[in-house]
């Protein structure tokens, strides 16, 4: 049932990448619990505008949990503490009256802050550009049913492919590792016959690009899996490690 709560927000404000940022507190009264977290921030921004102040910049787009654009670190958790949820799917009914909510950007060496809560995640695109694809040009593909694929493999590939590229795994990792992100793509493509041809080159290229871009190493703490809004399993990291070792041994 809908009710209203009062909360205090402590939001990270930073005017540009080079200047020092700080937490600013905002009191929010009568927040409807049926509103989403981002709608609550919309209300705050409308208020700031009425006060002739600059609104809080944050990334968001589809607001239905699939584009991966929203990226807030809420009370010490990327996308908040609910499992399997993006920030845009988080609702205020998950918070209690009188609570203080700390909101930070996704922090990692590879994700520099642009402004306030917006960060630059283009490093993820660069990793995909280094090999996260099947090298097939448009046209000339054979019939879609020419190669049967076991439902089990297709389903597991789909689970890996459901990664939305939000960066929660990196933000939560104490090493700032992008292993779950890379593993999801490597795993998806190595499970499918279409991706198997380039599996060795792909694993090597993507891992090397990840290292080059300043992401840390994986020490198997499992926090990425716990915080992933799409609940992607770290068993994919195991598969990536196998793919990578196989590739190295066959060098």
């Amino acid at each position: 049932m809908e009710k209203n709560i009062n909360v205090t927000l402590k939001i990270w404000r930073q005017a540009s990448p080079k200047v020092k940022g700080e937490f600013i507190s905002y009191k929010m009264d009568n927040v409807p619990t049926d509103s989403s977290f981002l709608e609550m921030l919309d209300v705050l921004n409308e208020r700031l505008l009425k006060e002739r102040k600059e609104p809080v910049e944050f990334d968001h787009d589809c607001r239905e949990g699939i584009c991966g654009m929203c990226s807030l670190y809420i009370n010490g958790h990327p996308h908040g503490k609910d499992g399997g949820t993006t920030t845009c799917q988080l609702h205020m009914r998950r918070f209690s009256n009188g609570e203080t909510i700390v909101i930070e950007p996704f922090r990692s060496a590879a994700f520099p802050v642009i402004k306030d809560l917006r960060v630059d995640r283009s490093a993820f695109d660069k990793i995909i550009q280094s090999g996260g694809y099947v090298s097939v040009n448009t046209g000339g593909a054979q019939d879609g049913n020419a190669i049967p694929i076991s439902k089990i493999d297709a389903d597991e590939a789909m689970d890996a492919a459901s990664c939305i590229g939000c960066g929660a795994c990196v933000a939560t990792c104490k090493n700032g590792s992008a292993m779950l992100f890379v593993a999801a793509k490597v795993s998806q493509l190595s499970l499918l016959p279409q991706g198997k041809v380039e599996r060795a080159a792909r694993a090597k290229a993507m891992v090397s690009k990840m290292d080059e871009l300043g992401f840390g190493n994986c020490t198997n703490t499992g926090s990425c899996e716990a915080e992933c809004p799409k609940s992607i399993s770290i068993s994919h990291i195991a598969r990536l490690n196998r793919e990578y070792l196989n590739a190295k041994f066959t060098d």
Partner: protein
Amino acid sequence: MAKKQDTTSVEAPIIDARIPAGPLAEKWSNYKAHQKLVNPSNKRRLDIIVIGTGLAGASAAASLAELGFNVLNFCIQDSPRRAHSIAAQGGINAAKNYQNDGDSVYRLFYDTIKGGDYRAREANVYRLAEVSNNIIDQCVAQGVPFAREYGGLLDNRSFGGAQVSRTFYAKGQTGQQLLLGAYSSLSRQIGKGAVKLYSRYEMLDVVIVDGRARGIIARNLVTGKTERFSAHAVVVGSGGYGNAFFLSTNAMTSNASAAIQIYKKGAYFANPAYAQIHPTCIPVHGEYQSKLTLMSESLRNDGRIWVPKKKEDAEAIRAGKLKPTDLKEDERDYYLERRYPAFGNLVPRDVASRAAKERCDAGFGVGNTGLAVYLDFSDSIKRHGEATIRARYGNLFQMYDKIVDENPYNTPMMIYPAIHYTMGGVWVDYELQTSIKGLFCIGEANFSDHGANRLGASALMQGLADGYFVLPYTIQNYLADQIQVPRLSTDLPEFEEADKAIKSKIEKIMKIQGDRTVDSIHRELGLVMWDFVGMGRTKEGLEHALEKIKEIRKTFWTKVYVPGQSVDMNSELEKALRVADFIEIGELMARDSLMREESCGGHFREEYQTPDGEALRNDEEFSFASCWKYNGEGEAPTLLKEPLEYEFVKRQQRNYKA
């Protein structure tokens, strides 16, 4: 031989789509056999700007780069993977006939023409159906993990408006998987240096030199500065204009600005009235609401739509005194099954939406607002078991639970129609070229294939058809004549002038410093659109809307408040520029709806309906695509007509009853 492929002919008074001659099934083959091509060494010297990285934009950018062209690709988000195609849930149609249930290219063509209420071009739709099978093959080759059966072959489901199972899907995330497929192909070309990606950029204008599109002005959303880019051709794949309604299923940044800017530079805007109201969205719940969430149409395969049979029961449910599960089978009105026995819950979207509105208007609606109907899975859960339903729709049920805080495995979902997709868009000819030479438009941004209503699982098909299999051919027919044209300097007066105009528009908005926030004006526009240009339109309502929109435009240009600096990251300024254009498209929608004195597909004029409340077309007078030509600020646009001639299909009143 394809007729009239000369790209230099001047504008004709009656709009000519330059459809190739010959039998329907041979038009596209004939076109491809006779079109002009560009040889590999010349392709390297030609630059193409592609706006947007959704299904259409990303597939076009990747395919053009694979061919050897230099591509500059722009996206508004931080990554091409976030384009709103990603949110499409249900599936993509193709005429594979893997199920042996009688499907064929002709049947997909026919269903799409009929679904569009006979307001689409036959030749375009046939081509779409023809290339649909290539799309599935291409996506499988990219590693798109489509749903499969235990034997390892591709699975299909059925969708509204069809009696065959031709929809391919990847859980309830088909758009995501297809987009990530296109994104991977695009990423490969970016890695090779064949595509230069500009993310967090927004196109603000097209630059015309000697009557041809030769570049764009774009704003870097991080620095706030405007930048100039030149090219031999410009392709706009910037999506639809549904966000004119403020509340829609579109993403927050989805906007009509690229389309409106090219309209203002002379590209015709076609059929703006044709907007799709999707029947299965989560109902509106509060004033602070920022967007609406779609529940995939695929749910109608297993869900049954109903409202209480008795008004008292509906009232008791609205007051919270009765639960839907308390009502017995004979106390429920499965109104779609009752009205449309042949198609039942799988009628096309426009029909399902209007039927829901009709029941709610008559007082049978549920939810605390009375603006909702039930979508009930209890029968399917009984028949197939909860595990099967979870496997089919798990992510959608979870999404519903998060938003509404109710478990749809135990209680029926509540749904209500919402603005979802726009069939109208920038007018293009058979080659997907706009009325400006060298300016092409693809995907939802153009108007070409869906007529007055789009069938489910056809948007993904059209976006990818345009980008992978149509534009990479047709654009060469234009570029073959451009190989002698050198790379133009962005210091040319035309670039200078366009850049200056954009800068002064931005400064004008910054200087207003009024007392209205951008969102508050956008909401005001959205309410007018929903109330008067939404599901039920009337002459009086539309005239009222036109008056209201005029006032809203005045409010915007005198009272809007944008804080901060223009040469900085400034999301309020971004939104303000978009809302200024939503006001323009909103007016154009109302104008087109007023002009079209008939009902067809998603355009329903209450004055024109059959005795049992179905859309009543007027083929005598309105069998044309309305093409609006911009005449300058404050001037009424001119209506031009592209006649729609049906050579191969006999038009009839759509019938989903028997």
